């Protein structure tokens, strides 16, 4: 990847900070000329257009776009300069939904969700709802970023939080190139601290999973073999244990789209996504069992659609008017970025789907 930029697209006032511009790129060029088929036509071939939700299983809540890192591939365009943060009032509205939802998984993401000043309060309240699987997506370095975060492993343990963390490679060079200087060493330290309180150990109920996504314009390799390689290297080199590895494809939006265009990889990357299109992955794309809630309470089919400003196609668009049955009747909004979810073994926040 090109050299890491230290500011978000928003701060740099890049045209790609605007969702409309990204959607325009994704609909024009090779897709407009017919050189590559549109996602809509591809899923129509298998009778999946319009794409409809199945049973709601996961509520994914984005607590804000602020982050201590500025990773080059970030689809959120997160960074220290992003000020969008969920308020306690919106959190209260989310809690009402969490108490009544049929979903079995709650998934907190960001940015770095821990940077939200009400993060701990929210976790404490939400964990009372007795949801089966309570995920926090932690970028690891936050645990080492400041003294006030040092006790996060204990805090996670206390609330039986399932920790899911990004780790693009088992070597320093590749990790720091994507996520910033020093990220690898801090992540290793944080993983060791999570292990020390019991996270990720073979029989532990404290789940620790890692997320792998490629460091450049290529698709992820097979999830099972990558998991083996990660486990071997992290254990041999640092004594680190974890449970599962989720291999995730980078979707061509936001900073990754910016990188693809700047490095002249955009067209080739879209070709490789379309070539790797796997119709069986369509069955399990995550928008079919997930709802995504933004920091300001709007509802989206997934975190990617959130970043593209595509609110759900339903009368119910905000958490304050939440109605699961009505929402489950909606059509999912799709565009060419969706090819990222159906390439190869498919890709979701829980890794491969096919």
């Amino acid at each position: 990847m090109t050299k890491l930029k230290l500011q978000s697209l928003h701060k740099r006032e890049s045209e790609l900070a605007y969702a409309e511009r990204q959607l325009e790129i994704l609909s024009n060029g090779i897709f407009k000329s017919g050189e590559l088929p549109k996602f809509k036509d591809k899923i129509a071939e298998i009778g999946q257009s319009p794409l409809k939700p199945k049973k709601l299983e996961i509520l994914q809540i984005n607590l804000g776009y602020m982050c201590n890192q500025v990773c080059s591939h970030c689809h959120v365009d997160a960074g220290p300069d992003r000020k969008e943060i969920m308020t306690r009032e919106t959190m209260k509205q989310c809690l009402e939904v969490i108490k009544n939802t049929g979903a079995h998984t709650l998934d907190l993401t960001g940015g770095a969700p821990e940077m939200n000043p009400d993060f701990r309060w929210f976790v404490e309240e939400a964990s009372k709802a007795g949801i089966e699987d309570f995920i926090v997506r932690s970028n690891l370095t936050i645990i080492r970023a400041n003294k006030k975060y040092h006790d996060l492993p204990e805090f996670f343990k206390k609330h039986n939080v399932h920790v899911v963390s990004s780790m693009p490679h088992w070597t320093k060079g590749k990790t720091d190139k994507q996520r910033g200087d020093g990220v690898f060493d801090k992540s290793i330290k944080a993983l060791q601290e999570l292990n020390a309180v019991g996270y990720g150990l073979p029989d532990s109920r404290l789940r620790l999973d890692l997320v792998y996504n490629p460091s450049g314009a290529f698709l992820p390799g097979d999830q099972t073999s990558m998991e083996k390689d990660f486990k071997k290297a992290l254990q041999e080199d640092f004594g680190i244990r974890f449970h599962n590895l989720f291999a995730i494809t980078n979707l061509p939006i936001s900073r990754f789209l910016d990188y693809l265009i700047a490095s002249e990889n955009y067209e080739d990357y879209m070709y490789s996504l379309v070539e790797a299109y796997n119709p069986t992955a369509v069955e399990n794309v995550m928008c079919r069992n997930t709802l995504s809630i933004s920091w300001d309470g709007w509802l989206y089919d997934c975190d990617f659609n959130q970043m593209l400003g595509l609110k759900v196609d339903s009368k119910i668009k905000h958490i304050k008017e939440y109605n699961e049955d009505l929402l489950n009747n909606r059509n999912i909004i799709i565009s060419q970025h969706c090819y990222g979810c159906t390439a190869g073994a498919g890709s979701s926040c829980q890794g491969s789907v096919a």
Partner: protein
Amino acid sequence: MDNNYYDPKDLKKFGDITEWSEELGTKYFDYYGKVFEEGALTAREKALIALAVAHTEQCPYCIDAYTVDCLKRGVTKEQMMEAIHVGAAIKSGATLVHGVMMMNKVNKLDG
């Protein structure tokens, strides 16, 4: 083959060789697929060997394909370059070791 002997797009047509010799082509691709499955060697190790051989054979299609495959499997650029050096060392070694043949001949004829 208008202006170039090699066209990157032709790599995608590799499977077409089966059209003009179905049985042999199919058998070859079945064999190829089997070779690259995880076995006593991991798929990652196999990709790295393939990359080294691609260079000694100087096949641009294979270099393209196995560079991407190595990246997908998490092989680092340092590992890729070392693998190519292994190929180069064997290739140059194979040339140089034939020097002994030349030496034997010279010694016999003109020793």
